[in-house]
């Protein structure tokens, strides 16, 4: 660890802290339909959209209508993406002439990759079981995937605002209009920032074109060993069961191109995380410089941090907004520090090698990390991307030390409470706020109240439904996978606790709508594509529906005026309580599974055993 590294982490946090208020105020204006500086440009566009679609912007919805509208919108969008993928071979903007997704799978068996991708992008997960450069046409990338990057992010923000309205309103039946919230989130919160962001990324060298891929002659030819194939291009199997190999000389490299910058901006700003390239933000065309790296990390947290201020503003208790922000910040710092410490101290098995940071080397465990980012910015990125359910990666989480890898995994397991996905983070932590208020609220001798709203059995029931989603989906799918050699463990590249971590991470990432891959698992199979796809849908919608039910129920309630007897949700003590409940509920649920994964792997590493 270096002072410079810590300062970079601190600097990143200070930028987030600095934009929290302005962004929060801006979003409060946007969703209260008050005047903003962007109105002259955007207001006419907004009116036109409503005119064309027949949306009455003054009409409000009950939570049920809000939920049904959101579900229908998501279902239709998901279906459209599925179809685009399947027929992209017949559509324009396909200079590489890529076939439809899953089209070539008749010989190897249907792998349901298109379903997985459709579900994954609709749910803001962006889990990618495919290699984008060799699978998706430019049209699919732009009209299919980038559309969802905007759509799923705008849905998330709309839902967060609906939840905040539920808290702030008194004795009202409605929580807003989904279409209006969705349109305003897209036009005001996402679009302008993405245009600026894309331009800044281009300035750093991120590409933006529609050209076919380039081919470059290698300066130094490479020789690699590949499976030898017969004339019918079948793999030749030797009598002992292994395949026959031959050497192949590689003299040229294909350099993938495309409209990257425009997609990269929303990928980060909308906490989507689905890379244009397979290497995601480790790829030099997606994330070329330390500045672009900082910009991308900033984009991951900015909206979610801002929403805490919006929460305070709209609910009338700015201190509460900051108390929630503080809880997120505490959990962020714990994760970032542990990950940085675990990676910077290097690998104990390489004792004797100089692993300390100095002027000529970054030190620590550099396996799977980009030299231009180093330890601090790789672990910081890994922490941020898993805190916020973004899922973009600039380093291989699979190559982290066991504890370093535990941090991203644990972050996702805490279900989007540490800033979280845009919008999703807000309602993610508010569910925990409701639970914290209920558990500890009784201790002050009153029916628990959250900002004047009594938390009653209906709210607790819905909050418990939300908290059940994680253990149910992650643990059940992972448990089936680890005892199924044919379709589960056969896809692992590593055995032992590391293999368990890989499977756990996979389902955690899917359910948590994160989308980052621990890697080390070949997940493009029928079992994994289907289950992860289902996990993303459960992890998104099974949480949203009860959450909206709470919002609708809270909106109907009276507000008990605050007094000395009111449960305080604005104090540092509340922050401590909230953090404890998040950690204890998360830790208690997943500790047994984690102890057999990263924890025992970490302990084994000191006995010289790796996997």
């Amino acid at each position, binding site marked *: 660890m270096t002072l410079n590294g810590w300062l970079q982490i601190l600097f990143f946090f200070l930028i987030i802290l600095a934009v929290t208020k302005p962004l929060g105020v801006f979003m409060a204006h946007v969703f209260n339909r008050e005047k903003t500086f962007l109105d002259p440009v955007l207001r006419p566009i907004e009116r036109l959209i409503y005119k064309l679609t027949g949306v009455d912007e003054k009409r409000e919805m009950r939570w049920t209508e809000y939920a049904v509208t959101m579900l229908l919108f998501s279902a239709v969008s998901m279906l459209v993406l599925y179809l685009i993928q399947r027929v992209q071979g017949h559509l324009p903007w396909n200079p590489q002439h890529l076939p439809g997704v899953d089209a070539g799978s008749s010989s190897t068996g249907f792998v349901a990759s298109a379903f997985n991708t459709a579900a994954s992008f609709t749910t803001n997960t962006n889990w990618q079981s495919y290699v984008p450069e060799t699978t998706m046409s430019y049209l699919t990338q732009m009209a299919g995937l980038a559309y969802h990057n905007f759509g799923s992010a705008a849905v998330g923000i709309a839902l967060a605002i609906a939840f905040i309205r539920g808290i702030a309103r008194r004795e009202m039946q409605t929580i807003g209009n989904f279409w209006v919230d969705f349109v305003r989130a897209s036009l005001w919160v996402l679009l302008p920032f993405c245009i600026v962001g894309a331009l800044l990324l281009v300035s750093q060298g991120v590409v933006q074109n529609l050209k076919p891929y380039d081919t470059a002659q290698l300066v130094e030819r490479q020789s690699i060993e590949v499976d030898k194939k017969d004339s019918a291009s079948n793999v030749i199997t030797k009598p002992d069961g292994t395949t026959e190999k031959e050497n192949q000389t590689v003299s040229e490299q294909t350099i993938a191109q495309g409209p990257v910058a425009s997609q990269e901006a929303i990928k980060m700003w909308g906490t989507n995380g689905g890379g244009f390239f397979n290497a995601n933000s480790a790829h030099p065309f997606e994330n070329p410089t330390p500045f672009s790296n900082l910009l991308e990390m900033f984009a991951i947290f900015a909206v979610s941090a801002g929403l805490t201020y919006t929460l305070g503003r709209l609910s009338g208790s700015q201190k509460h907004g900051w108390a929630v922000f503080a809880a997120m910040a505490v959990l962020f710092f714990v994760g970032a520090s542990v990950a940085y410490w675990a990676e910077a101290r290097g690998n104990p098995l390489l004792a004797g090698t100089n692993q300390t940071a100095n002027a000529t080397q970054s030190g620590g465990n550099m396996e799977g990390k980009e030299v231009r980012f180093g330890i601090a910015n790789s672990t910081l990125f890994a922490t941020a991307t898993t805190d916020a359910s973004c899922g973009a990666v600039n380093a291989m989480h699979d190559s982290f030390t066991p504890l370093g890898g535990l941090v991203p995994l644990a972050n996702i397991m805490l279900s989007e409470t540490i800033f979280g996905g845009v919008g999703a983070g807000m309602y993610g932590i508010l569910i925990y706020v409701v*639970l914290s208020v*209920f*558990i*500890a*609220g*009784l*201790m*002050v*001798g*009153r*029916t628990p109240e959250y900002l004047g709203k009594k*938390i009653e*059995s209906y*709210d*607790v*029931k819905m909050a*418990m*439904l939300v*908290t*059940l989603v994680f253990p*149910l989906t992650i*643990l*059940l799918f*992972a448990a*089936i996978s*680890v*005892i199924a050699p044919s379709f589960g463990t056969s896809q692992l590249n590593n055995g*032992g*606790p590391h*293999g*368990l971590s890989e499977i756990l991470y996979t389902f955690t990432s899917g359910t948590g709508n994160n989308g980052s891959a621990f890697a080390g698992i070949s997940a493009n199979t029928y079992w994994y594509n289907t289950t992860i796809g289902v996990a993303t849908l459960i992890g998104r919608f099974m949480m949203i529906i009860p959450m909206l039910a709470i919002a609708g129920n809270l909106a109907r309630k*009276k*507000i*008990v*005026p605050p*007094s*000395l*007897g*009111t*449960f*305080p949700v604005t104090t540092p*003590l509340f922050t401590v*309580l909230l953090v*404890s409940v998040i950690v*204890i*509920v998360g*830790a*208690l*649920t*997943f500790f*047994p*599974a984690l*102890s*057999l994964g990263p924890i*025992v792997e970490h*302990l*084994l590493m*000191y*006995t010289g*055993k790796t996997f």
Partner: protein
Amino acid sequence: MIKQTKKVAVWNWLIVKRAIADSFVKLNPRAMMKNPVMFVVEVGSLLTTLQFIYGLFRPVAGVTNSKFELQITLWLWFTVLFANFAEAMAEGRGKAQADNLRKSRTETTAKRLLNATFEIVNAIALRKDDVVLVVAGEFIPGDGEIIEGVASVDESAITGESAPVIREAGGDRSAVTGGTRVLSDQIKIRITSNPGETFLDRMIALVEGAERQKTPNEIALNILLAGLTIIFLLAVVTLQPFAIYSNAPQTIFVLVSLLVCLIPTTIGGLLSAIGIAGMDRLIQHNVLAMSGRAVEAAGDVNTLLLDKTGTITLGNRQATEFIPLSGVKEQVLADAAQLSSLADETPEGRSIVILAKEKYGLRGREFAAHEATFIPFTAQTRMSGVDLNGFEIRKGAVDAIVKYVGASGHDVSAEMTEIVERISKQGGTPLAVSYDKKPLGVIYLKDIVKGGMRERFAHLRQMGIKTIMITGDNPLTAATIAREAGVDDFLAQATPEDKMRLIKEEQAGGKLVAMTGDGTNDAPALAQADVGVAMNTGTQAAKEAGNMVDLDSNPTKLIEVVEIGKQLLMTRGALTTFSIANDVAKYFAIIPAMFAMLYAANGGANGPLSALNIMGLRTPQSAILSAVIFNALIIITLIPLALKGVKYRALSAASLLRRNLFIYGFGGLVAPFVGIKIIDVIIHAIGLA
């Protein structure tokens, strides 16, 4: 602050004996199903029992130490029994009290009136609107309203208070309760309830907990606990595949042990006991809550409406000064005041006699020599006094006297008004006196604020509860007393309609309101209030409108009712927090024990996960056993806390939270580390594991 009016020891042997028997009766799965947490423990215990019996006949892979398995199974059963015992203990006191009440519901006969005569019938044959005659020495056969007569009644069977009370027809003291006894005189009663619906019947059902329904917060808490149980069920059920993957499959004994330790058995086992004990605590204070909902609402109350008289001030006012009109000697006024009050048996009247005696040495005189006629107070004249030797001496409401002397040409309204205003400003009540239709002056009656009320209101304010004093006094007087007593607000010259409007206003602002009342005209407000405590001396209408009845008829008790409600909620929250915090330590005991040998070096005793055994527990088996034993014993240990409730303190929510979070949250984190370690040392020492 909360005084136990009737102390019953928690560990009363008779109650304990009955509770032990009940703990086994409650094992009936149909009853257990109401408590999802403990039901899971029971199913787990059954599973291990079956597995153990199976293992006796056929060896099971991985199950070698039958002593360990037997102990686990037994302690799992103990966990269930301890939870049942807690509930039975809480019910015990109520049941004992119900038995006593039943005794007073002995077979009585009644004299049912038929026109001029009466017939003797069994009390059970009485129906609503029958009229009965009860004479001295007889039991009142059923709840009713006195329609004729006045009597002193012994209500000790219901209230426990041995001093007899006066009950009379008309007014607010007309209700009588079945099972009480008339001591003197005779009364005619119109029966107001059918057999089986009487107050005594309801009281028995209430103290016994027979009609106990889960309260809103209890339901919500049960949902939380059921949810946590499902989460931990998932965590444990899926742990087996992960363990199989890691080549360390677990036995059913270990898995059930882990599950039982993780699910919130502490609060799950004590939850219903806390609720029953809360109701019981009210009964110990002689307050009957008609529903548990009302007790919870009491904890949530934001506004207390308190009647001035009897609650904030002593029921009676005292004369403190004689203020003569100009030209009248003070002694003359005092003399007339005393004469007018000699026959006045009200506390105010007596205080006038005493003041005159103390100040001017005037003694009570014998009227035998004189021709004296006493004039009683009536609502029409609003005066009382005496006609002595042809002279009319009167005292009464100022405006009544002014009018009375004005008829004979004495206009003193200007001077009177001045005096009255001065007295009002000081929080007093003026009483004018006249002699021979000539005005003499004013007696200053002072309201005496009860001792300690100021501090209690300050405490309530600390807890965010607003107090509003309700009084029929004029605003000036009310303001002074309000200031003196330290209430937050007051409603002067209050009519029942004003009271109702005030309650509705507060409720519209999202507040919960509590009040006391006894009169029939209080009934609508009592029904409207979230917590309405009716006085037992009050009318039947009032008792039916409220959701609590105070058998002692002490309006100040409203404050204690609020405290008991808060204590009930606090106890639940504290034990929930404690229960959840406990889990952390149990993980550190059980997980390393389960996987102690996992990935152990060749022939080595301890695998890497032993590093998590931070308590240094002796063996994997003693670790698991210690955790299970701790988990069971903590239920027993906390029974007194569940029954008595956590100590109540009048603090702001922020300070309460800080305090309770430290004690039950942090304490709950630390306590099991210590407890499990101690148990581990003990069972190792005596060779159990």
